[in-house]
């Protein structure tokens, strides 16, 4: 008899799940936001998307990938709105006609992390390019994202400013998201470029310390870009525009500025709509 009972329970479960009410909500076409892992890994993305969905009743599919992949999704018309952080690529994206209304609306900053023993002797140096130069000449281990993300692009810009190449034998491309890359650097006791929010969320479980911060070159600006609906007729322009307007609203500003204060005790993201371009 147990057999019948178990079969009944399983069938019941199956039917209950078949008529899952929260599945219906997804049938209407929702806007696709392609964004970066750093925004998701801090938890900011979930908070903002929840607030937006509650406010407007619209749904958003927020896909967290690297900035490189997000821009590629925009180039193929697979996303409706982008939230990315790689100014040079963003400008090119817009110039090529793929995106419109690019708006730089917030920033946080990068920090250079390294082992406490500081083999390259860089602790306290402010100029990021100088720090990279010393890491290279000391042949100290450096861990890179290596995934064409905004952070990886930033790292490449700093190497270029430094005018040197990283030492080949002391350079690891992790090919992973920000948090995992920091964990790799932590295990191998290498230097790594990370955004401050990821550092703060991992601070309690890693030994790495901030070796350099505060350089202008380490500012990390985030922009919103609408994917050009004239170029891709399948783009959900209305949904994207609604999210765009919400993310630039006063409500969103409040959430962004207060985010992190409770969790990390300090402000993580800074609003800068004055820098509109």
């Amino acid at each position: 008899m147990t057999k019948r009972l178990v079969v009944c329970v399983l069938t019941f479960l199956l039917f209950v799940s078949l008529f899952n009410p929260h599945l219906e909500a997804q049938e209407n076409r929702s806007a696709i936001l392609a964004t970066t892992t750093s925004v998701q890994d801090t938890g900011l993305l979930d908070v903002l998307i929840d607030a937006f969905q509650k406010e407007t009743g619209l749904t958003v599919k927020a896909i967290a990938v690297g900035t490189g992949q997000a821009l590629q999704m925009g180039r193929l018309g697979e996303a409706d709105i982008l939230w990315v952080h790689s100014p040079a690529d963003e400008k090119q994206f817009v110039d090529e006609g793929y995106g419109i209304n690019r708006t730089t609306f917030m920033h946080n900053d990068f920090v250079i992390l390294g082992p406490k023993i500081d083999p390259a002797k860089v602790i306290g140096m402010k100029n990021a390019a100088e720090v990279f130069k010393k890491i290279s000449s000391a042949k100290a281990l450096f861990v890179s994202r290596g995934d064409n993300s905004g952070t990886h692009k930033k790292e490449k810009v700093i190497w270029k400013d430094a005018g040197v190449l990283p030492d080949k034998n002391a350079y690891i491309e992790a090919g992973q998201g920000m948090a995992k890359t920091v964990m790799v650097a932590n295990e191998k006791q290498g230097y790594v470029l990370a955004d401050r929010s990821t550092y703060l969320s991992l601070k309690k479980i890693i030994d790495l310390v901030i070796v350099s911060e505060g350089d202008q070159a380490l500012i990390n600006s985030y922009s919103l870009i609408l994917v050009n609906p004239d170029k891709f007729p399948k783009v959900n322009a209305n949904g994207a525009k609604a999210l765009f307007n919400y993310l630039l609203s006063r409500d969103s500003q409040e959430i962004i500025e207060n985010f992190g204060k409770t969790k990390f005790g300090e402000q993580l993201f800074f609003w800068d709509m004055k820098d509109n371009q």
Partner: protein
Amino acid sequence: MNFILEGFRKGVILLFGLNSEVLAVLKLSLYISILATFIAVCIGVPLGSIIAIKKFPLKKIIIALINTGMGLPPVVVGLFAVLFLSRNGPLGFLQWLYTPKGMILAQVIIAAPIITGLSLAAVQSVDPRFYQQILSLGATTRQSIWVLLKEIRLSVLAAVIAGFGSIISEVGAVMMVGGNIKGQTRVLTTATVLETNMGNFDIAIALGLILLTMSFIVNLALTFIQQSEDR
């Protein structure tokens, strides 16, 4: 060491204080994997049985292909599912990308060859004269396959368990096809990855424990069916 123990401690607390968010993730995981297993069984068991009992050219090649399919890497399935389901892809009109439907599709593709291959092997393990005998007693092909399957239900359920196990624990394909969207396509495995990335090892451990517990309960149920002898 301490942070692992601490993680387990907090994990167990979270496990018993299931909040609504975790519950939604749990429900979606169950929904997707059970439905995908169900569909894969509907495809795999009949297909495996037919291939096992029928004689046709290239049979060995087909079986080799199915056996290869049993080891399909989920990320490859995920990649192709994303390419096909994307807006400008051949199946873009379905609008299944980043939805549970797309995730179910990917999981069916992963589980179906496993269930097909194992049912095929199970049916082939029966003495072929048995099948001939049922036929000679006047049964149709469909009826005789049914009798056969009842005879080997132990092995068929083992196939179902293997299929379910392969997809409930899978993270690559559901991450790519589902996108790990909160409240829409976040399942236990992708949530575990996210929490690990966020440095919340305690929550990640809790989710891992929930996944294991759930998997155990479903397998317990299947094993009960498999092992019961109600004569």
